């Protein structure tokens, strides 16, 4: 721009909705309002100019940083054109998918990293929080979850002798330094499964007991669940889900379903580590107690054979490490068995405590034969947690 340009405009002072006609001069760095009567700062630096509104006409409505209520409207003409050439932010907004592609891709990448960080970070955060949760609170959560479950799954009528025998077995399966309370309940349902709720409440379903052929298998299941109790896995899953739910509420706005499935997948992967840890505890505790680990291995084999016959979920979607791998690990880890886990009489009492489930005609979707599915327990825990946290969707 060799020479300053002259043009016309209308100035508004932010006080009254009445424009004053002004003469305007565009220099190399400034837009200068020549009409001194306006009483406004007469020099507007080009770098501080903004387009104030995108009008359908070619009027250029400008504001300037510093005096946000002042407006200068330029009529179409060479000055307005030259100004838009010199100061990009005075140009009208245009919308173009082509232009927004790269920034959108960048935003997507940043979002992906943030989500990955959340999914990976939540479980790591959950462990210290779960372990630091006072026992009283954990027990309350466990009891409430149990009450919610108990509506559908009544407790089996377990004779006192059987209860005592189970309690004694639990004590024998405690490893050094594990003295959290463990309460075992046998419950009536068709779902062959066992759960460790927060607060050391272990549920074993009648359907699972019906699958068992020896008290060693029962001891294996108990030991596995006690492994979950010792590490507060139930609480950990609950805390990680809740923190993820809170984090996603930050983003929320229509993609809740997506966020939930991501949470679900993350929890599944992370549960597999818990299952391995619980298996490891079970093998060690059974060895210490002198109970054969073959029972646990047999149960894995039998259930996975049943599962294979069924059309089940693909293995990678399961919470559990490959069953064969688990069975092998259980067999390999066993020490010399000294005795059956329970006496003949007591095992008979446990076996008979729950009514034998009637065989179903249609295969139950959930009866996929996993020995322990803590995601179920966690879901129940989450139900109660969800009730407590009316986080906006």
């Amino acid at each position, binding site marked *: 721009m060799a020479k300053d340009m002259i043009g016309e405009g209308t100035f508004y002072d*932010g006080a009254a909705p009445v424009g004053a006609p002004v003469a305007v001069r565009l220099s190399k760095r400034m837009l200068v309002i020549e009409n001194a009567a306006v009483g406004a700062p007469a020099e507007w630096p080009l770098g501080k100019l903004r387009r104030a509104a*995108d009008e*359908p006409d070619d009027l250029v409505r400008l504001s300037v940083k510093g005096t946000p209520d002042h407006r200068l409207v330029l009529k179409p003409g060479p000055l307005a054109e030259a100004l838009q050439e010199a100061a990009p932010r005075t140009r009208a907004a245009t919308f173009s998918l082509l232009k927004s592609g790269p920034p959108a891709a960048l*935003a997507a990448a*940043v979002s992906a990293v943030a989500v990955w960080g959340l999914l990976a970070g939540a479980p790591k955060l959950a462990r210290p929080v779960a372990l630091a949760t006072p026992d009283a609170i954990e027990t309350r959560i466990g009891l409430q979850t149990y009450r919610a479950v108990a509506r559908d799954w009544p407790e089996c009528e377990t004779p006192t002798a059987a209860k005592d025998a189970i309690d004694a077995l639990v004590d024998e399966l405690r490893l050094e330094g594990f003295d959290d309370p463990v309460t075992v309940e046998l419950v009536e349902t068709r779902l062959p499964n066992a759960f460790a709720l927060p607060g050391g409440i272990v549920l074993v379903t009648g359907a699972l007991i019906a699958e068992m052929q020896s008290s060693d298998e029962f001891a294996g299941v108990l030991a596995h669940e006690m492994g979950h109790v010792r590490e507060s896995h139930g609480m950990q899953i609950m805390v990680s889900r809740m923190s993820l739910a809170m984090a996603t509420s930050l983003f929320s706005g229509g993609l809740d379903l997506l966020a939930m499935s991501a949470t679900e997948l993350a929890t599944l992967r992370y549960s597999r580590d818990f299952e391995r840890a619980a298996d490891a505890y079970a093998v060690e505790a059974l060895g210490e107690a002198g109970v054969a680990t073959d029972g646990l291995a047999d149960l894995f084999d039998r259930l996975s054979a049943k599962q294979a016959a069924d059309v089940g979920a693909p293995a990678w979607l399961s919470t559990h490490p490959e069953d064969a791998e688990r069975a092998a690990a259980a067999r390999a880890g066993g020490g010399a068995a000294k005795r059956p886990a329970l006496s003949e009489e007591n095992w008979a009492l446990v076996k008979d405590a729950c009514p034998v489930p009637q065989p179903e005609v249609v295969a139950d979707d959930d009866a996929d034969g996993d020995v322990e599915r803590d995601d179920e327990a966690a879901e129940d825990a989450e139900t109660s947690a969800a009730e*407590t946290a*009316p986080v906006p969707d």
Partner: protein
Amino acid sequence: MSGTREIQVLTAKGLRLPEPADGAPPPALAYRGETNDIASLILETILFNLATLTLYRFWARTRVRRYLWSRTEIAGDPLEYTGRGTEMLLGFLIILFIVFLPLAALALVLQLIEPMLVAAIYPIPLFLLGVALYRARGYRLSRTLWRSVRFGQTGKSLSYAWKVFGYSILTTITFGLMTPTKQSALYRYEMNNTWFGDRKFEYAGGPNPLYGPYIAAWFARIALSVVVFPLAVGVTAFFAWVFGDQLGLFRWIEQIGPNLSAAAGVGIAALLYLVFGAAFAAAQAPMAWYYAAQFNHFARWTRVGDLGFEMSASGWSVAKLVVGNAFIMLFTLGLGRPFTQVRTFRYVADRLVFRGVADFEGVGPSTVTRPGAGEGLADALDVGAV
């Protein structure tokens, strides 16, 4: 308000306003948007919303508003929207940390003490709804500007929320019959706290003229419900008979395997929702005539200085607007919301005219305090529609 001001309320036709001395017409209101612009803007914001898992929504909303405002012209000059996405993000974060996380924590504690106590928290979001609506309105007004002069809102969001809460209870226990009183009272509070520069808006109307249209709509709704819901049940039963009993659809669904049956179940549920949703919407149709009457009444009794308003909404046009917008939202899964806003802006601009005299020279600068952050609560409660 000001005791010396003469009473302007005279006839059912509305406020008496001075005739322009020189015969100059009052300023015109126009919406001058192009569908093409908004389509590419919407596509772009959808792209960014997906890429950021919807966190971009604050900027998306800002851009859409900036567009809508700039296409709305009064006397040839556009409105300006000066809000920023960061202000809305900040508002959202503030609300998240001072309202929702503490509320969630309280709920958690109550759940541990006694699960039944959690129900005590349920009215809180209902109450917050009023706060959210009023604060969001205040934010939008404070970011709206015409010919360099700002709009603004005074009043207290808590007072407004109590009104919403109290009148909602009253309307509920009177089977809706208090609706005109509620709407009129809320509109009065809104308008009598709305400013353009140093000029306050005034609403001088009352609910009484609205009771005729409301009661007509009330009875029409009952009459329609009596026809429409049995019809919906009949249609459902007929199709269940044809496809289920005669063509064996249900048996076939049972045989196609658990996953496909579940999908079919979802499909059937969706159809049921559609049929009964349509029945419900049809039964609500008379309300369009009430709302048309209400818009016209409110406009007629609203003024800012010597400038008044006249609205010519009709029942059919309101029904078309509402149903059209509902379909847009439904078929675009909510992503097409800006299209519904364009329709609403155009609707109002086409039907609202000014009366009286615009004394622009006499307007002074706004002294209303502007909120620094915006609409967090409205976003969190999902009522930040515009």
